[in-house]
């Protein structure tokens, strides 16, 4: 009997080359792909939004976002994705679709998106300048503070964008969830946009 190995491969596995890219010197943009996450779309059933919110609060200890926000909890991020719906981003099966199934039974429909997206974390001095080439969203800190989120598009590609917790050095962090089959294409566009600032590229298994 043949031996089957089920290697998991990120949609950016080939496109992403860790290390420096573009202009030399201090990198203005840092790009990190976060791999192997769980992502579940939670959508309230008709007339059950209140129940869904209660179930979410009981599960996560915080209220799920009802406006374009991303709310961090101890082991998950809840990201607004539309009226009466949000995404649950987590690791290691803690809040996988199987784990959440009973939590939202009767109040919400769940759809697994874990493999449907790639997650790219952008930071650095020039992160905002680079993202201004891709996004029509105003990312000024007064307008798009920590926890702000947007369902938007970059380079004609649907993207969920939110501002995560600042880095230890105070730099803002922007997280992008992009559809997996578009990811390599958008990745090249991001590199094009960032090259003039100098880029440092990496990947990580950890959610920031």
């Amino acid at each position: 009997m043949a031996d089957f190995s089920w290697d998991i491969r990120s949609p950016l596995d080939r496109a992403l080359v860790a290390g420096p890219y573009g202009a030399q010197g201090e990198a203005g943009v840092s790009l990190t792909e976060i791999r192997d996450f769980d992502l579940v779309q939670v959508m309230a059933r008709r007339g059950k939004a209140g129940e869904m919110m209660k179930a979410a609060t009981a599960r996560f200890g915080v209220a799920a976002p009802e406006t374009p926000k991303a709310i961090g909890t101890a082991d998950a991020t809840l990201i607004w994705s539309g009226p009466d719906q949000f995404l649950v981003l987590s690791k290691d099966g803690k809040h996988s679709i199987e784990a959440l199934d009973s939590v939202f039974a009767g109040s919400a429909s769940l759809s697994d998106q874990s493999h449907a997206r790639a997650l790219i974390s952008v930071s650095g001095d020039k992160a905002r300048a680079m993202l201004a080439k891709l996004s029509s969203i105003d990312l000024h800190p007064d307008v798009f503070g920590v926890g702000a989120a947007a369902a938007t598009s970059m380079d004609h590609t649907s993207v969920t964008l939110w501002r995560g917790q600042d880095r230890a050095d105070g730099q803002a962090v922007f997280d992008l969830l992009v559809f997996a089959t578009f990811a390599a294409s958008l990745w090249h566009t991001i590199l094009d946009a960032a090259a003039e600032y100098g880029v440092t590229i990496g990947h990580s298994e950890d959610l920031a």
Partner: protein
Amino acid sequence: MRGDQANRLNDGGLIDRSTPLNFRFDGKILFGFKGDTLASALIANGVKLVGRSFKYHRPRGILTAGSEEPNALVELRSGARREPNTKATTAELYEGLEAASQNRWPSLKFDVMSVNQLFAPIFVAGFYYKTFMWPAKFWEAIYEPAIRRAAGLGRAAGVSDPDHYDKAWAHCDVVIAGSGPAGLAAALAAGRSGARVILCEEDFVLGGRLLADGGTIDGLPAAEWIARAVAELEAMPDVRIMTRTTLFGVYDGGTYGAIERVNDHLPVPPKHQVRQRLWRIVAKRCVVAAGAIERPIVFAGNDTPGVMMASAMRSYINRYAATPARRIALFTNNEDGWRTAETAIATGLQVAAVIDARPDVSPAHRALAGRGGFPVLHGSVSGVDGGKNGVRKISVSLTGGARGEVEADGLAVSGGWNPAVGLTSYHRGRPKWRDDIAAFVPDGAPPGMAAAGAANGAFGLGACLREGFEAGAAAARDAGHSGNIGSMSVADDEAFSLTPLWHVAGKGKAFVDQQHDVTASDVELAQREGFESVEHLKRYTTLGMATDQGKTSNIAGLAIMAAVSGKSIPETGTTIYRPPYVPVAIGAFAGHHRDENFHATRLTPSHHWAVEQGAVFVDTGLWKRAQWYPRAGEKDWLESVTREVKAVRSGVGFCDVSTLGKIDVHGPDAGAFLDRVYINAFSSLAVGKARYGLMLREDGIVYDDGTTSRLAEDHYFLTTTTAKAGLVMQHLEFCRQVLFPELDVQLTSVSDQWAQFSIAGPKTRDLLKEIVDPAEDLSSEGFPFMGAREVALRGGLKARLFRISFSGEMAFEISVPARYGEAMARNLMIAGKPFGVTPYGTEALGVMRIEKGHVAGPELNGTTTAADLGLGKMMSTKKDFIGRVMAAREALVAPNRQVVVGIKPTDKARRLRSGAHIIPKGETPGPENDQGYVTSVCFSPVLDQWIGLGLVERGRERIGEIVRAHDPLRGEDYDVELCNSVFYDPDGGRQRG
């Protein structure tokens, strides 16, 4: 290495004399300094002749010192970077700059086509509508190309642009166009109040007219005031100053277009940098402080090199320390023009005379004339003696009728100032006429936009500062900022006095639009011929239609039209203003969307594995799909595809079908919802089963098809065609949110969540047994045709298995989460190795579906009904669904509709081509006998001949009939037989096996 620079003043100017630069003009090496434009450097080197005109090939020099320049257009750079029609007046000088004059042959000084001037009577306005009419067929072949060669401007590079362009968004409270006194004052007020400000300046230095005209502000020399203002602005974190950036347009919702010439001032952009960047600026408010453009007076010989706008002459002398002439005459109708005489005297140049069209001249200017020893002539310039070497002598018509002559090598002209009303007029605002300044000023500006300073008709320095400051403060306040704006800068206002003068009658050509060679007599001719409306005037004479968009000519043209048609200027009106304010390279609009980045691409989960296999890819929409997998020794695609089909039909093969749209349909009403969007029932589908579904548009035409499976009581998994994946998702969301809000149903696109493979062929089950957990029952009883359920794979992974077939063979589709897609392809190869597994591409997929008579894109073409496709019986009569009512329309159920039928040539060796028309035997091909056409073709390895599907009138009733396939495009005409559309295994035994 400063070179000769004979016309460079020894000191002064905003040039950096410590950074000399060399450059070439028409091959000749010349020198200039950092801070020069190409035009100022040419002037410093004594170059007067810069180009030849568009139509008459007349010698032309430099008229202005800004982006309104009509004459001094050059080809800048060389090779792939050659840019035609670049204004020497805005091109920043850099080391090694190469420029060439345009529109001349063999050389600028001796131009053969200047003979056109002799034929000038022929080349009047609209000449090509009147001449070259006969014979008509000569127009396209001979006349037009010849005219275009003789006219035309510079040459495009003709090869791909090696540089990159960029696009970016910016957001602010207040965007300001222009950094003259009004713009800087506006930025200070808005910035101090706490607003986010973007200040755009098209020049590479901030200051606007202050750079040339100086002045005293807050008791400081202008240069010092600018430096202080800029330092204060630069210290504000939310003020962004963008030089080399032109705000060129305003769009809906407070969006502005701007073009930043990031690296045009360098020979080649530094590595990783772009040449230009297109900005979309979203601003709550806009202050237009774009200044004003000095206007010429139209007189005979006004295009002679050496005739220059008075303000431009001051710019060259004061800002660039370059003297356009040694002995200057000034022709003015207003007070401001005199500043050029003041500048000339202060610089030690000779003033030959001032010709002033006004009845009076101020005592101060009389005194200046006395000190400078030059005459003041009351009257107008009526002619210029000179040519390619510049101005020699000027004829003057003195008030009272006498004539005079003035010897000079340069003539400065001032006809007053036109506020730059472009931006304020781009939303169909019509500028309004102000008699006191004899100029149009902004009116009807787009919401949130206000003009200030000279752009608003306030020409005094004090007024510019005041209006700018107030406009900046108001804009910031409107945007919600109320910080302390501090105090306003102050300056005196200059005296203003102007007597309108547009055109001086005289002998010889008097040019209105110098770039398009439109003369005053062309305007008069247009009026005589009935083209009196300014919009007609523009199109008939091409006035204002050149790359400068008539910035120096439009108002003069309509003023002349007003005079000859006996109307006032405001009655005559302006043409409609449209963006962009300056030409914007198409490359900037494209940004990085070129070559392989022309559009986004989508890759299937097994893409990189398919690359390793040597697959040939085809673009289907945004997708890259494996089309076939060539093997060594195969001579063409047909051989590869035929091998793949035979391998599937006799053994087993697999194909990545992840491009199909996939939608999770959740909720207690999911079944009821699908009943309404599909023509057939889905609420009755058992859990664990799949069903083929067809959906119609509201108008009864087929929209899309696909297989939908019921995975749980309240969960269906719907698939769409690749092409319609996004559209069907939109359609279903519309149905859910708008049409059927009462249903409890939730939709999620899961197209990217699942890697899906079709595994087909008689040995499919053998392959699956290798990879699926042995506990799973894959027998016909355990997993019947159209079954759908989750299975465990060896190694613990869960997959979804669907027993569905597109190929007509025993087949399954298997889905795994997408990041396992590549592993799945590899494992299918391992599992199938004993059975000769063959990966196949979209071509083999297409062959097998045609052999099986399945319809696809060519048949689901937006004109066909379910019945046309042979699927009419699927339309449920027990329920309502989208498209049901409209599908019953008379024309959609007519018995003579073109329906899907099989087609095969009677000559088995003949190749059938899609697109061939079906004509009854014995009839003449033509629309009246056209009965349909061939939609899909393939070479069928099973039948060993070309076969196809077609849409043919009453096709299903005519099985066995021989008709003609008429293909005029390819010059073919042959007999074909109409046959059953299911060529292969018509009773379906194989897929159920």
